[in-house]
């Protein structure tokens, strides 16, 4: 059993660490800055991806084989989310065409930021890692996907999963 506080701080430190190392490269233009930003996001996402792969491998060790895609998504929303964030996804929607929207009304990594607009612009930094977690988890279960995220009122946020049809 580890303590949550430690994880939250570690995560914060990773975020600021990644962004700090990016700042070393002086920002030239707005476009460049955005690109740099993108690189940071991607880096965090990749870390999350690797973690997701590992976690899902552990968490599904003793579960029965999954029936189908939806079965897997449910697992992510319930068991996976609970083990990682100590709560379930509040709402899962899908168009049955390989797009799923996972909504968390009180996302753990955002609750530590005081709610309201003032930190909104920083919010996405704190979602990247989790996007990776989801993508990594899914990919390890054999589902290639793209995971994006969206926040409009903290600490609620949506993760969108686009499944790559094979």
């Amino acid at each position, binding site marked *: 059993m580890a303590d949550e506080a430690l994880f939250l701080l570690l995560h914060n430190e990773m975020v600021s660490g990644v962004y700090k190392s990016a700042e070393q490269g002086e920002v030239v233009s707005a476009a460049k800055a955005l690109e740099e930003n993108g690189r940071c996001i991607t880096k965090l996402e990749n870390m999350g991806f*690797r973690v997701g*792969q*590992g976690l*899902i*491998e*552990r968490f*599904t*060790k003793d*579960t*029965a*084989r*999954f*029936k*189908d895609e939806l079965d897997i998504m449910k697992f992510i929303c319930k068991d996976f989310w609970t083990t990682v964030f100590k709560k379930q996804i509040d709402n899962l929607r899908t168009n049955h065409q390989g797009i799923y929207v996972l909504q968390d009304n009180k996302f753990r990594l955002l609750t530590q930021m005081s709610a309201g607009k003032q930190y909104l612009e920083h919010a996405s930094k704190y979602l990247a890692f989790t996007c990776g977690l989801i993508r990594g988890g899914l990919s*390890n*279960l*054999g589902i290639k996907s793209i995971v994006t995220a969206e926040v409009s009122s903290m600490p609620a946020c949506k993760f969108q999963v686009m499944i790559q049809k094979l």
Partner: protein
Amino acid sequence: MAVCVAVIAKENYPLYIRSIPTENELKFHYMVHTSLDVVDEKISAMGKALVDQRELYLGLLYPTEDYKVYGYVTNSKVKFVMVVDSSNTALRDNEIRSMFRKLHNSYTDVMCNPFYNPGDRIQSRAFDSMVTSMMIQVLSRAPCCRAGEALWA
């Protein structure tokens, strides 16, 4: 007891395959590779099955004169294949299961090693020694006459 242990990636290439040194390993590579046919069959059949039947252990894939080939598939679609000497008739299903569990646990640890790159061949020392233990492990259990129990079972 196991004469060959293999871990096979989602994409069906071997992540790890090791057989007892005394035997010609090529034979086992062929055997394991061929067994994937049945693994695929079982997995696809499994899709339709009910939850309780959807266990990870696939059971006996196919027997040959000299060997029995057992299969197991993780939720991450990684397959474990284990070849056992047929003469080892005393070996029971639940023993095979428990061996697969050990494999799975050990594999999970490998997956969690941050320096391991998922999809790469497995070179973990821990995993290696675990497999070794499976291969040299001898049956401690004396083969007492189980006939009585066998009847009316």
